[in-house]
C-alpha cells in the first residue's frame, strides 16, 4: 500500500504544471502505468479526491493508460509479452529476456481550463 504517497506526488506535479500554465482548474490527469508497476487505480482516484480538496485540482478525473509487460529476447531479439510462467521466447525457445516495457509510471499530460 503506497498509493497515498504516490497520489500526493501526482497532485504536486499536476498543481505545479497547472500553476505554470496559470490555469484555474485541473480537469483531467493522464497517467501511464506499466503492468508491473504496483499501483491500484481505484485507490489512487479515491485518495486523490480526498487530498485534492481545497486545491484547483479537486474533482479532476484521473485516467490510467496501462502498458502491458513487454520483453525482448536477448538471444534472437524477438519482442513479446510474457504471461504467467511463459517467459520463454516463442521464436527461439531460449529464456533470456530483458524487460523493455511495462514498468513505466509517469504523467503524460493534464487537461486544464
Amino acid at each position, binding site marked *: 500500500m*503506497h498509493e497515498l504517497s504516490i497520489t500526493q*506526488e501526482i497532485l504536486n506535479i499536476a498543481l505545479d504544471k497547472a500553476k505554470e500554465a496559470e490555469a484555474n482548474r485541473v480537469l483531467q490527469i493522464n497517467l501511464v502505468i506499466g503492468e508491473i508497476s504496483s499501483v491500484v487505480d481505484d485507490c489512487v482516484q479515491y485518495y486523490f479526491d480526498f487530498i485534492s480538496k481545497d486545491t484547483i485540482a479537486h474533482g479532476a478525473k484521473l485516467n490510467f493508460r496501462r502498458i502491458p509487460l513487454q520483453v525482448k529476447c536477448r538471444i534472437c531479439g524477438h519482442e513479446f509479452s510474457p504471461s504467467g510462467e511463459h517467459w*520463454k521466447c516463442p521464436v527461439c525457445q531460449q529464456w533470456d529476456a530483458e524487460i523493455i516495457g511495462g*514498468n513505466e*509510471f*509517469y504523467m503524460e*499530460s493534464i487537461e486544464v481550463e
Partner: protein
Amino acid sequence: MKITVLQNIMNANDQLAERNLAILNRNGVLAVNVMSSPGAGKTTLILETIRRLRNRVRIGVIEADVASTIDADKIALESVPVVQINTGGQCHIDANMVSNALERIPLKDIQLLLIENVGNLICPADFKIGVQKNIMLLSVPEGDDKPFKYPLMFTTVDAVIVSKIDYLPLSDFNLDQFRQTVEGMNRKARIFSLSARTGEGFEAWVSWLESVLKDFSGGKGSGGDQRKTD
C-alpha cells in the same frame, strides 16, 4: 487546454535517492538495500553477516519496520551502530526516511551499511532509496514460482539469495529451475543459496559482499541505484 507533462511520478523520491547515494559515496560507505517478504530471514542474514565480517569490516545497520524496535534491539546486541525507522503503516521505506536515518548513523565510522527494508516483495521495488546495491532474499518455504509473481523485484536486484535451504528436503522447491528462471529475467543478478542456521552456502555470499566492498573502496564501482522506475 491540454498540457504535456511527461514527468516521472517518482521524480521527487528519485532525486532524494540520488542525494543519499552522493552522501554515501562521499563518506566511502557501501550501502546494501535488503528486501524480501516478511519472515524470509532478512534480520538473520544481517546478524550472521555481521558476525562473519565484524573483524574485517566496520558495519552499520538501518532497520525498517512498520512498528516496533524488535529487530534493531537484536542488532544492537552485536554492538554495531543501528538506527530504527518505523514507517507508521507504510509498506516500504522511501528515500526521505533513509535520508533522515543517514543523519543518525555515524557514517565516518563505518564502511558497510546494511539497510533492512520493510518485509514486502512489491512496494520496495518501486522506491529507490539511494544505495549502491539492492539485494533480495527468497526463502525456500515461499516457493520457486515467485519471480513470475513479482517480476519488478526480481528483475531489478543485484543479488538474489535463496534462504533457509535447510528446508529443501521438506519442500518441492526446485533450485535449478529457480536459478534458470532468475537468470532468464535478470542477467546481472548473482544468485546465492544458503542457510543461516547450518551455515551452508553462507561463505559464498559473504565473500561476494567483501569483493563488492573491495571494488567499491578501490574506487572502481560506485555505480549507484540502477533500478529503473521510469
